[in-house]
């Protein structure tokens, strides 16, 4: 293809809005957080003063926070966060995959309606929905009434008394539609002739799923996992609402404490930086593997 001189300028220009967007909403705030984390306290007000000039950055505090994250009091919080998000993702997969599969392959004319129903809770504010769950999950709430009436449990379940399962379930509840929608989009694009071919070759339904559908939906699964996991990692209000126990503290809660509860915002900024680096590592892994998946499919 021959490129004209103007074309060479046009294509990069088309990327400009995206570049500006990235600069304004990611690079600048990120730099600001770094400037706070590596800055110094105001002598009178003691609030952190951002140091914009990297030549004067002070890493003492940041190093300390990294130490605490690796071996100190923050380590169990990181481990717990990873565990909770991992469990929640697994549940999202177990719940979300069948739903997305059904939507893509068997829902037929009702597909639009079902998708709308899945997204319907999003018409109500997240906090409002969680508050509704709080009254349902009370010791004498409807959930326990139902469980006791059905003789599933003999005594009320203490859902809200610092129960880690409640936190994981709440995370799943909060984010499972984010999992379903991208997965559905991928499953919907799988060529049904490939599945027919698999059956023609004498492979059963389950093995077809395992060897054809599942590998082909890999990129969708990756997207769904990333889209669900990122907000879960930073979530702190779900935890605050349904638990509040130190045994379920996630890293978002510690960040919230340092940024809002105390007078040491620079530690909160350092934690945000550490977590951002980890998320970036996660994103890099996702980008590399999705590229590889694309190469394999094409």
């Amino acid at each position: 293809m021959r490129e004209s001189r103007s074309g060479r300028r046009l294509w990069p220009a088309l990327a400009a809005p995206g570049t500006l967007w990235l600069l304004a909403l990611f690079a600048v705030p990120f730099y600001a957080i770094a400037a706070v984390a590596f800055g110094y306290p105001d002598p009178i007000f003691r609030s952190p003063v951002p140091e914009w000039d990297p030549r004067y950055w002070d890493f003492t505090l940041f190093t300390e926070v990294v130490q605490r994250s690796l071996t100190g009091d923050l380590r169990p919080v990181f481990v717990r966060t990873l565990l909770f998000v991992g469990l929640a993702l697994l549940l999202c997969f177990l719940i979300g995959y069948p739903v997305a599969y059904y939507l893509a392959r068997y829902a037929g004319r009702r597909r639009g309606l079902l998708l709308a129903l899945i997204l319907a809770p999003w018409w109500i504010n997240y906090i409002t929905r969680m508050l509704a769950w709080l009254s349902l999950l009370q010791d004498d709430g409807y959930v326990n009434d139902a469980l006791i009436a059905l003789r599933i449990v003999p005594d009320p379940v203490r859902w809200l008394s610092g129960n880690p399962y409640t936190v994981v379930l709440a995370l799943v509840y909060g984010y499972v539609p984010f999992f379903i929608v991208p997965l559905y989009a991928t499953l919907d694009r799988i060529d049904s002739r490939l599945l027919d071919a698999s059956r023609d070759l004498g492979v059963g339904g389950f093995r077809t799923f395992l060897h054809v559908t599942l590998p082909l939906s890999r990129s969708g699964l990756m997207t769904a996992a990333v889209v669900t996991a990122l907000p879960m990692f930073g979530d702190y209000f779900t935890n605050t609402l349904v638990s509040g126990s130190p045994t379920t503290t996630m890293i978002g809660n510690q960040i919230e404490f340092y940024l809002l509860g105390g007078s040491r915002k620079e530690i909160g900024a350092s934690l945000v930086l550490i977590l951002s680096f980890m998320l970036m590592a996660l994103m890099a892994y996702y980008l590399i593997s999705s590229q590889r998946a694309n190469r394999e499919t094409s």
Partner: protein
Amino acid sequence: MAFHPRETRGPLIASGASPTRRQFLQLGALAAVAGTGVLAGCGRERPRPTPTGEQIVLSRPNRPTRLPLHSDVPAIASGLAPEKGGTLKVFNYAEYLSPDVIKAFGDKNGVKVEITTFTTQDEAIAKLRTSGTNFDLYFPTPDILAKIVAGKLLQPLNPSYLPNLRNAWPKLQDPFYDQGSQYTVPYTAYTTGIGYRADRVKSVPTNGYDLLYDASHQGKVYILDDYREALTMAMLRAGQTDVNTEDPAVIKAAGASLASLVNAVNVKVGITAYQLVPEGQADVHHCWSGDIVNAQYYLPEGTGAEVLGYWYPAHRKGAVGTDTMAIPRSAQKPVLAHMLINHILDNDVALENFSFTGYQPALSVVTPEKMVADEYVAENLTSAIVTPAHYTDGLQELQLSPAGEALWTDEWAKFKAGQ
């Protein structure tokens, strides 16, 4: 103090992630880079602004402070006519001033009164420091006064506009944190104690803090989500009364005491005692006196206030706090602001305001007997009314040095990590 009874927390966008093993390694590498200062040129010394002459004094009841006056920040002259028209801007915690009270004041003086809210004093200070913003009336806590006066964010008050200051507790007409009431007048007073369900607590021990450690309330015990209040509670329970201590051993012991609550009762942290106790989600909740006053209005239908209880140490060596009103330097309507302060210090107006906020004014008119007779609180909750004697004997959580502050916050973070 870290959290104020009126502080609420809105959603904050925080992004975070947990590490995999490989990320831990990457992080370690990063730390090494940071630690050894390999990043070229980083970590150089730069001349920092230093406090000019004035030292920030940590005021204490036994070490009263006369806040400095600045020649470039004068008080308004006496006898000025109130400003006409426009908007009087009030800067306060949410739900901390009765809308009826300010509406009545606005109607009488031909001004629109507008409330802007903040959630923490840190946030409020940041806003007051932003050039171009102006507020006429602001509600600071005593612990931050030294720095905001040094930072010239407040203007001195002119007492000739404030005859109602005589209604305040005598001790607060000349408080230790602002001798001579140069910059502030008192607003509310509260204690920190133990709120409980009287119908579920068999008997209250002499050391009422033990209720929080009682295993029979497993899963139904809350402490305040506030590092100063929570650690102070543990100190007071152990008989340690210097609640502004910077002794690492004392702070550590308090942290260990809190940590023991995790196994004993699976303790939870929260700041909504006014809801959780009346609704029954909490049996025992470390809380502010205002919480239990407000709890009366959150009781389910058919449940009376007799199910509520509030314990505060009988010897009155418990946590106590007061709030103040002040006029920012940037005020556009300082005369009207003085008049509004005087209005809020009026006995009847203050009581009307109390019935809205649940936090009592620090005025002599408030006595436990009168509050029960006038039905502000049920008879079994008179312990939630603060008297001048409570204030004199009580212990206040005040500003710490930066190093002390770090000890307290880190101890709390360790407790919250729940290991």
